[in-house]
């Protein structure tokens, strides 16, 4: 496993979790795998960061959790975006796009 990994910027993790949950509900491992997949393996989210973030975001009202069955019939805790969470995803996406654009331009400037 010699994939190049980047440290998750503060705040980026929240956005990635929101994005990962965009299409639908997932359990913790599912979120982790999905982030790995959509960032083409750039970001690996460890449980030590994932779980505190999930709980914090749930308390903030962005996510809602419920217990369900995993694909191989294990009882697992699933997360889903709330209405507030969807709003938050839009806001953060827009912010990120602006920052990313600015950063790209700044780095390109001579």
């Amino acid at each position, binding site marked *: 496993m010699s994939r190049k990994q980047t440290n998750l910027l503060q705040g980026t993790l929240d956005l990635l979790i929101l994005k990962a949950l965009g299409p639908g509900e997932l359990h913790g491992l599912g979120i982790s795998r999905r982030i790995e997949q959509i960032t083409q393996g750039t970001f690996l989210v460890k449980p030590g960061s994932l779980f*505190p973030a999930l709980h914090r975001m749930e308390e903030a009202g962005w996510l809602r959790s419920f217990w369900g069955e995993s694909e191989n019939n294990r009882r697992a805790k699933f997360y889903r975006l709330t209405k507030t969470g969807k709003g938050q995803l839009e806001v953060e996406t827009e912010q990120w796009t602006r920052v990313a654009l600015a950063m790209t331009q700044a780095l390109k400037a001579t």
Partner: protein
Amino acid sequence: MKLRSRIHSVLRNLLHNQQVESQLDEEVRAYVDMVTDERVAAGISPSEARRTALAEFGGIEQVKQAVREDRAGAGFDLLWQDIVHGARQLWRNPGFTLTVVFTLALSIGANTAIFSIVNALMLKSLPYPHPERMGTIYTRVNGARPSDDRHYINGEQWELLRDEVPALISAASGIRASGVNLQAGSHVEYVHDARISALYFDVLGIQPAIGRSISLDEDRRHGPKVAVLSYSLWRNIFGADTSVLGRPILLKGEPYTVVGVLPENAATPSNADLYTALQPARDGEGSGTNFEAITRLRDGATWQEADAEINRTWLSRASRYELGENPGAQVTYYSVPLQKGLTGTLRPPLLALMLASGFILMIACANLAGLTLVQMMRRTPEVATRLALGASRWQIQQQFWIENLLRALLGGAASIGLGVLALRALLLLLPEHFLPVAQVPLDGRVLAFTLGISLLTSVLFGMLPALATRKVELRCSMSSRTVAGVGSQSVRQSLIAGEVALTVVLLAASGLLIRTLVHLETLPPGFNPDGVMTARASLDDIRFHDPAAFLQLLDQSTAAMGQIPGVQQAAVGLSLPYERSVIMGGITIGDGKETGEKTMADQVYVTPDYFSTLQIPILSGRSFSEADGQKTQHVTIVNQAFARKFFAGTNPVGRHLNLQDTLIVGMVDDVSMAPGIDVAAPLTGEATMYVPATQVPASMLAMVHVWFQPSWIVRTARPVEGLTSQMQRALASVDPNLPFSGFYSMRDLMAKTLATQRVEVALLTAMSLLALLLSAVGIFTLVANNVAQKTREIGIRIALGSTVHQAMFEIGTPGVLASAVGLLTGLVLCAGVLRVMHSVLYGVGVYDLPTLLIAVATLAAVALSAAIAPTLRIASIDPATTLREE
């Protein structure tokens, strides 16, 4: 939305902690299981799959802790842990905790009790609608004899106030409710009747529960006779029968029509059983200041307008009695809130008591600061260990403050119980109707005060020790086994000195009050109070307006009481020693060089045996006799004060008063009485003239009996079984419809007059004893601690040849020194503080040397014993044991 979800999370995390934890546990486990499943599916052996999954997870407990720390309300959680830890500390050290809680309970309890009275009298609104619009009128006189207080008003003032001050609704009442006879069925009750003007209940904002209040027409002279009943009288005597409305009841021997009943729990300043019309006028009763005014601001008017109107109309009067003693003085009138007017005389002693209980609190805090300091020093090793393990100083401070707060709150809670008990006892001590409020409640404000004061004490007694722990040296404390406490000794000594100083002030103050009370109670009474029984009856009754009927009653009833076996003598007097009496103005000196001088004096009508029954010595001339009748020469007997005041102390017998009309036939000794003219002391010998009951003019009889109820007095050589019932029977044999209000010994009458002083003495003495106790405890613990800390040192010293006495001296000295400094400081404080007591002291100076000496001696003795007692343990120290223990 976000806030709500946050609050929800905090509550869930705090309240359903266990559920939250088990869910977290399950979630984490599911994650690991799923990773393991994936690996197994990929062909790795189950045990290997699980191992790598766990390793990759990176420590289940750490992840869980990371989640916990991120959780909402994590701060509360830490705080809660500190509180639990603090509570455990308190539990582990029950002796210390109990001492602290007990000290706080006593000191805060005293404050709670006193504050609830302050609250009831000064802070709580009067129980009337819009109490801020209710007032009464103060008179400020600038001149030779300045004064600034509530005056009674005369009929002219009342009419002007009623008619010329449109900014106010005004009402007047008689000065106090007086006793009257109410015929209820077959028997007669002695009840309290307040005489009030129309609009009295409108000023108070009280609507009668049924019927109406007294109308303007009924308040005119010779108007229809009507009565308004209090709820309790209506229920107790008339069985809450609504048909009583409009029916006549027999009151004062005449039919009065009941027009209304007040609501249940309606309180009035007069506090009477029933209300009749005042029917005020400018002459008769209204020629003197015999009315009391209360006012309510009309809608849209201001107090400034009202005051301007009052001043305009009252200053335009032709004759102004205010200038009588103060010619040329400047007089102004102003409204004050009714509450202040009603409680004016009680405020200074109450504030003094509040100050005294504040002292108690400070003494208690000083004690607790000392104790807590020692406690902290004992825990130095613990603090050092925690510091070494990485706790921040802030965390340790927080822990200590939480412990102090817990102690203070425990003490505060205990103090509420104690305060309630103290308050009960205090209210029992007070005579009936002493406080102008119906009840002293323990309301939210009192509880808030107690809570506030508990928090304050925790800050006060926690501050010093907290500062001290800031200096804990890590290395020193870890290495040395003994506890550092060199600096703490001097801090504790200053604390002790401070509390001893405050105790000196309290002791001296209560000493002065005790001396005052003793002075007043042991004043030569001027008569023999032992073996005298008295009883009062109301003659404010149409049947006794006729002098013949009145005299017949006195004659026959005293004769009947004289027949009771064991009774030596019986008499009647309008008032008795220790009581107030009627003040008569317009007395003119009839001959000699003082001819024409007008004056006023107390006047008491008496039956011939009055002086012999009370054993008031006749100093000159003769007593009254049966020969002094209605038609004979008008005679009077004056007291010594009268002779001193008007005849420069020369023998007054043979002189005349009121232009040759009345002959002075005797002079008697002064007796102690409640002052009426010059309120210089609670008991004085005021200028008094006694007149024979036979010579009281008919016009006067009706009037004085409205204000005063005469007393029957009998003297017995020894206690007589069933005396009071025999007196009642004797009176009933003459008039079956005349009840006595109650029976009082002379001591009862004196106690009633000196009630304020007795209460002050009881309270302040209790507080100074409490202060003394607290100081003793403080000194004792200081020295006892010294002994405990230095046991090893003392052991070595004794082993090296020091005597027990030397060791005792060495150890006890700090306590004695601190007390000595405190005593001196206290004396200096006394010089400043005691001056405010000037107005409540009689017969003793503010700087009374014997009192101060006794206070100092008491405190010195207590301090010495408290310092010596713990050193006695030194004698039992065995050097061999002590050294072996090391």
